[in-house]
């Protein structure tokens, strides 16, 4: 890999990654007396696949929740597109263009796949209530545009055949894919994936990996993901943050991280002194 400069770097497979989209500076998050995240800093750059890994209870999900606004850290700042982000509610963060999926899948079970994906575009709709109810003017144009964008994503993730199926009836692997589709529909500037491969079999994992790479390649989407499966992470990501007990113990390319002694200790379980 080439030198990392403030503006760009080139990945192992030859893609040029842009400047910083999001920067976490000295983030500390506490729940009462428990410190979930301790003074962590790292950045996410335009167009890269950034992974956060670590053993159980390392604080990975907490970190993702800080980025997506579900938690507000006690200390430290989040910079988004060069500006300091004030404490926000999750829905405000979503409207800024940060979409996410959940470890335990949060879909609208009663709605069809198509309707679920359409909700991803809710904050792209600007037409007034009456215009929408009468189906005239701006509302009609918007609906057509949004439908097109959604159909494109549905085709891309190969879920055309289940478009009209209620989500509650789908198997686990497909639900995960619908959730990804909904997040993508928002055309996010950062896509956060919380354990996208959790609970999947080998075949489903391969499919999901392919989709993540394709999304990044086709739409140029910046992706930050949390994952347990080391093999998957090392194949997918451009740069990796490693966390253990709420602290950052490694940050770099997969190769750098793999050879980091602290990381090896954390994963192999060396006694802490």
């Amino acid at each position, binding site marked *: 890999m080439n030198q990392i400069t403030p503006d760009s770097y080139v990945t192992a497979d030859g893609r040029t990654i842009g400047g910083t989209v999001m920067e976490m500076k000295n983030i500390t998050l506490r729940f009462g007396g428990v410190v979930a995240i301790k003074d962590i800093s790292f950045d996410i750059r335009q167009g890269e696949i950034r992974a956060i890994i670590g053993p159980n209870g390392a604080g990975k999900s907490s970190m993702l929740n800080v980025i997506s606004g579900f938690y507000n850290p006690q200390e430290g700042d989040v910079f988004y597109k060069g500006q300091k982000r004030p404490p926000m509610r999750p829905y405000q963060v979503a409207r800024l263009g940060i979409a996410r999926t959940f470890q335990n899948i949060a879909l609208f079970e009663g709605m069809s796949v198509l309707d679920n994906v359409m909700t991803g575009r809710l*904050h792209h709709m600007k037409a007034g209530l009456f215009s929408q109810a009468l189906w005239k003017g701006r509302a009609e144009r918007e609906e057509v545009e949004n439908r097109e964008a959604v159909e494109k994503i549905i085709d891309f993730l190969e879920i055309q055949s289940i478009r009209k199926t209620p989500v509650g009836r789908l198997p686990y692997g497909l639900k995960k894919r619908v959730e990804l589709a909904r997040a993508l529909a928002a055309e996010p500037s950062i896509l956060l994936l919380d354990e996208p491969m959790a609970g999947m079999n080998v075949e489903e994992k391969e499919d999901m990996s392919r989709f993540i790479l394709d999304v990044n390649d086709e739409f140029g989407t910046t992706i930050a993901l949390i994952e347990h499966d080391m093999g998957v992470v090392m194949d997918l990501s451009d740069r990796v943050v490693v966390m253990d007990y709420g602290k950052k113990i490694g940050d770099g390319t997969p190769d750098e991280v793999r050879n980091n002694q602290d990381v090896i200790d954390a994963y192999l379980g060396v006694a802490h002194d």
Partner: protein
Amino acid sequence: MPEQLIFGMEVFLNGLMAGVLYALVALGFVLIYKASGIFNYAQGVMALFSALTLVGIMEGQVPFGHLVNAIFGTEIHGFGWHVPAFAAILLTMGVMILLAWCVQRFVFRDLVGQEPIILFMATIGLAYFLEGVGDLMWGSEIKKLDVGLPQGINAVIDETTFEWFGYGFFIDNLDIVATIIAALLVAALVVFAQYTKQGRAMRAVADDHQAALSVGISLSFVWVMVWSVAGFVALVAGIMWGTKSGVQFSLSLIALKALPVLMLGGFTSIPGAIVGGLIIGVGEKLFEFAVGPLVGGATENWFAYVLALVFLVFRPQGLFGEKIIERV
């Protein structure tokens, strides 16, 4: 045609009309329950409160007049003006939206994620609070509400049926108007829920809070909106019932009639509330007509509840409710 059958038809029609009014009240319950999982015990009191406010505004009554007079020894009773019905309805709607905001801000914002029973208890508190505020604001005497809806026997139906059967049906104009308005209201609600951005957001929140947040939906906005819509439904029900039988405390008890309607139709279904309301309305009128004389009458008081009880035994989710499936 036998006389009994003709009377029965008239009873049936009147039952349908009464059912529409039950359905109107039940609709308010369904809306809030669907979107927030709260069983709103205060829905009936909201109808009473909206009707009181409407009368108060129309007659230019001073809010909290009695209270002010008692404290300061003044003698104010009214502003001395009369607000036209349409403007008064708009103003009342404004009050109901303000109420919705207050309910969300001061009651339910701090109760997010609590057990359903706690949310239910909160609505009981809300019901008594609102009842008290209604009394203090507008006084507790029985008021007459007249927003210009036609009342009395419908002459056309009376004459037509007299020509056909030799017996004129008594159908109240107010009931006909109520039916038309209820139909329009339901159509508007369906369009709102299915085709607008705000309606989609409402359905999304009803389904999954976390997922709704992650696509940029503000939960408190949706809840204020749902309580406002429920307030609007309460206002419509309040106008209909208030015109029919005067604005008084017993108006809040129509909520009790909505309970069997909900058990029949299911707590989560808008069509269920309508069909349930119609079944209860027709059922209790026909039952009173057919069986009432044999048991000494007054069956309307209990018929709906017995029917609901039967439903609870054989189909607990109601006619249209979501089927309850527990996976183990």
